[in-house]
C-alpha cells in the first residue's frame, strides 16, 4: 500500500502517453467537427436563385431522390479544386448535385464563376449572409451533404470531394440509400 503511492505517477503517466499515442496514430484531425445534423431532416429553407439562372433551392426540393448538397463560393480556393470532379459526376449523371452559393459579396460572382468553370449543379440557392449555412452547421467551404429520399441528412463531407472520396465513401453510401 505504502509503495503503491510511488507507482501512481508512473501509472498516470503511462495512461497519458497511451492517450497521446492513440490520438497521434488515429490520424484524426482535431479540427474536424462531426455534424450534429446527421439523420435529421434538412433544415427548412427557401433560397433565392442566382440572378437569371433559375432553379432556386428550397428544402422541399431535396425530397424524392438521393442527392448531394454542396456548399461553395467563388471566393473559395478549395472549391476550385473539387470543381472539375463535380463536373465529371454531372457528365456521368451519377447523382443530382445541388449547390448553396455561400457568402458571395456580389450575387453575380457565383454566377460568373459557374459560367467560367462549368455548372455541375441542378439547383443553386444564394446564401449571402450564412442564414442557411448556419442551419446546416457549415464550418467552411467546400462541404458536401448526402441527403436521402426523405430529405434526411445522412452524411457530411468536409473538404473537397475527390475521386477517392467519391469512390470510397460517398458512392457506396448513395447506393445504399437508393435501395
Amino acid at each position: 500500500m505504502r509503495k503503491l503511492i510511488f507507482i501512481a505517477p508512473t501509472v498516470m503517466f503511462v495512461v497519458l502517453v497511451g492517450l497521446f499515442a492513440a490520438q497521434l496514430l488515429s490520424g484524426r484531425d482535431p479540427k474536424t467537427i462531426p455534424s450534429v445534423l446527421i439523420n435529421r431532416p434538412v433544415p427548412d429553407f427557401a433560397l433565392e436563385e442566382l440572378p437569371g439562372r433559375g432553379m432556386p433551392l428550397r428544402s422541399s426540393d431535396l425530397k424524392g431522390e438521393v442527392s448531394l448538397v454542396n456548399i461553395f463560393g467563388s471566393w473559395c480556393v478549395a472549391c476550385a479544386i473539387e470543381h472539375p470532379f463535380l463536373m465529371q459526376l454531372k457528365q456521368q449523371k451519377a447523382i443530382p448535385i445541388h449547390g448553396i452559393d455561400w457568402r458571395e459579396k456580389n450575387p453575380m460572382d457565383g454566377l460568373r464563376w459557374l459560367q467560367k468553370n462549368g455548372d455541375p449543379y441542378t439547383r443553386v440557392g444564394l446564401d449571402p449572409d450564412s442564414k442557411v449555412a448556419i442551419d446546416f452547421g457549415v464550418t467552411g467551404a467546400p462541404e458536401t451533404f448526402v441527403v436521402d429520399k426523405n430529405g434526411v441528412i445522412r452524411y457530411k463531407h468536409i473538404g473537397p470531394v475527390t475521386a477517392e472520396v467519391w469512390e470510397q465513401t460517398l458512392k457506396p453510401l448513395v447506393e445504399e440509400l437508393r435501395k
Partner: protein
Amino acid sequence: MKRLAVLALSALMLSAPLALAVQPDEMLKDPQMEQRARDISKHLRCVVCQNESIDESNADLARDLRLLVRDRLTKGDNNDQVMQYIVDRYGDYVLLRPPFKMTTLALWAGPPLFALLALGLGWRLYRRPAGARPDDAPTATPLSAEERKRLEKLLRTEESGS
C-alpha cells in the same frame, strides 16, 4: 504526406479577409442588449478558427454568427435560448464552457477531485507516529552523527545571516 496536403487545403479553405472582430455596424442600439450579445459571443467558439470565440474572431462566419446572436436576442430569445439555437446546429463543440453532462463529467469533477487528493496527500505527509513530538521524531534514513553535525554547522552558518 496526404494528411499534410489536407491540412494545407483546409488552411486555404479558411482564409478570410481581416476585419477586427465586432464591427460598429453589427452592434445593437440598446447597450444592455449589446452587452448580452457580447457575453454570449465570448462563450461561443468560432467553428472555422483554431481556438477563438466568435467575439474575438475575424472570420466571416464568426461575423454571421454574431449577427445571428443579435438577431435572436432582438426577437426576444433569452441567453440560454440563443446558445441552444447555435448548439442545435453545431453541437456542444461550440460551447467554450462545456455543459455538465456524462461526457464532461471527468472534466468538471476533476478539479475538486484533485483538491481532495491533494488534501489526502497533505494529510499523509503531516501524519507522524503516535506520541512522537515534531522535534525529536526519528528520520527514516538517519544521518550519521558526524553528518548531522556537519549539516547543522552548515545550516548555522547560513542562519547567522538572518
